[in-house]
């Protein structure tokens, strides 16, 4: 099996990958990745889902040759990320959400051209490719606009386009739609799906906070927390793991206007959803196990002075799977986004 041969090797092959950081305070070490195994086949859109500090960004940094692992092995397109870093770089693209690439005084087109040159893209190829990407990113009207005159969302769309300017084999999208409006995010998702479909063998590794994005795009999803992969399967496969019982969402109003502490209700693990400030309510989500009685939960809520404004039941979503596996929702994460790569104790 020749390294880099598109027919024979997985796009990403990670075995026992571990990364620890030296803690700045109190000595000791912080484990960002603790023995991760992941294999991503060519042509897949693979999602990496986890709360802040789960280790997603650390994994991407290792795979994009920005960080050494402490132990284990990682190969991209058949090449070892340490020994063959140069070969890996020739085949990858990276888009990090919220990044700012390029120089404010350059136009969108000039910036994309500059980055294409860092990948050695010949001028005759770069020109039409950049035009197509600008079109896809919805920046045709801003192609000759200086970057420092773009809005945050437009800048993020340009960053997205930059990740594809070298037509890489494997693209790492780390929260790529962060800061984009709904329409732009949808256009980006459509582009990714089309890019993979139209160019067999192209692969995408996506990390996202948007469950819908992962559901819509990804062939398989790995749920990661505290540096460990808790589950890795297709969405349907993940859903089967937690199916059974009923997914319930309540809209609650506390009598005193506050948020009551709810570690568990009648033996059911519940998580808070988004508040509705305009109605003064807040959503509470939980899964009732088979045989579980909704009436018991409602009675207990009433006993705690909580008024129930609305009740809805629905199918298992990726968020349900996530909560069932991780034990908390993405919105409840309390650590810094990039903690995986730079935990608070990291140097």
């Amino acid at each position, binding site marked *: 099996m020749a390294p880099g041969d598109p027919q024979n090797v997985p796009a990403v092959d990670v075995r026992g990958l571990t990364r620890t950081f030296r803690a700045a305070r109190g000595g000791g070490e912080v484990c960002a990745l603790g023995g991760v195994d992941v294999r991503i086949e060519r042509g897949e859109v693979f999602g990496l889902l986890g709360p802040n500090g789960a280790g997603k960004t*650390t994994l991407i940094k290792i795979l994009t040759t920005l960080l050494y692992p402490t132990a284990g092995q990682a190969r991209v397109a058949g090449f070892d990320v340490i020994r063959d870093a140069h070969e890996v770089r020739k085949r990858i693209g990276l888009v990090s959400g919220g990044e700012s690439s390029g120089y404010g005084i350059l136009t969108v087109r000039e910036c994309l051209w500059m980055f294409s040159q860092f990948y050695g893209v010949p001028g005759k190829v770069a020109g039409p490719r950049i035009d197509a990407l600008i079109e896809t990113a919805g920046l045709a009207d801003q192609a000759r606009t200086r970057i420092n005159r773009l809005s945050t969302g437009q800048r993020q769309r340009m960053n997205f386009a930059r990740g594809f300017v070298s037509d890489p084999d494997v693209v790492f999208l780390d929260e790529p739609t962060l800061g984009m409006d709904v329409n732009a995010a949808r256009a980006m998702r459509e582009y990714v799906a089309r890019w993979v479909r139209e160019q067999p063998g192209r692969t995408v590794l996506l990390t996202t906070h948007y469950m819908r994005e992962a559901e819509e795009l990804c062939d398989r999803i790995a749920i990661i927390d505290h540096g460990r992969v808790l589950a890795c399967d297709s969405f349907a496969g993940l859903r089967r793991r937690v199916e059974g019982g009923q997914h319930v969402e309540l809209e609650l109003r506390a009598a005193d206007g506050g948020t009551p502490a709810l570690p568990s209700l009648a033996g059911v693990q519940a998580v808070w959803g988004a508040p509705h400030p305009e109605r003064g309510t807040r959503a509470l989500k939980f899964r009732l196990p088979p045989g579980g009685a909704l009436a018991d939960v409602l009675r207990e809520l009433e006993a705690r002075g909580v008024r129930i404004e609305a009740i809805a039941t629905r199918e298992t979503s990726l968020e349900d799977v996530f909560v069932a596996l991780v034990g908390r929702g993405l919105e409840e994460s309390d650590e810094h986004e990039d903690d995986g790569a730079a935990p608070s104790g990291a140097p």
Partner: protein
Amino acid sequence: MSTLALNLRATWGRAYGRLVGAFREPTWLLTDAILPNLGMLAFVMLYRALGAPRSFETLAVVGGLLATYWINVLWGMGAQFYWEKQSGQLQLYFVAPCSRMAILSGMALGGFLLTTARSAFGLFLGFVVVGVRVEPFSLPALLGVFALTMVALYALGMVMASLFLLWGREAYHLSNALYQPVQFLSGLYFPLRTLGPLGIVAAGLVPLGLGVDALRQVLLGAGAHGLLPLRFEIVALVVLGALFLWLARVALAYLESLAKREGRLTQRWQ
């Protein structure tokens, strides 16, 4: 695509970005081309008022021109990686398959071409407006010494780019603090020989003084009051240029390895 072709493209890509961007900002003409030359003019006027030999006016003009390049090396090269890090862009350079030296070379090439365009204004001011004179000189020798000086200066800038990144704000402040002393120790507005042994030591550390002195010797001969014989200075510039290029490579490799080991340096918050 060969590695050489890739790196040449990367160099030009980075240089192009710098060139195009700079000509788009008209205020830079004032801050980078006109204002820096006022200091040079002040010295020319001073020497003229004192009745100093006319060669002293040429000394000041040559020093003023080289000062423009030094400013570019200091802030356009030395501080650049630090700024790239602060803007979150550095990691994109480290992910690209081209050599980091190619990107630094692009910064140097762009900075050099840009500064040359700006220093043309200084030349015009010194030799046409103020009427500074030179002795008959060898153009190939002048261009050769100038090229060696630029290679040594910008190679030093490449080394500084890594050091600035490694030491962060401290290096930034140190450089700010050293700006005037380096100008003084390089004898930009007076013959470097005046400093005696101190001038020789300074010239051995920063090639600015050596370059200025060598260029003056080519233009003015004995009137330049040179520090060392010209051929010694040329050899020293070659050695310094090669040394700084090697050091830049080593520093970059070390920096990248450190960044990968410790997970910092490429992120703005680290």
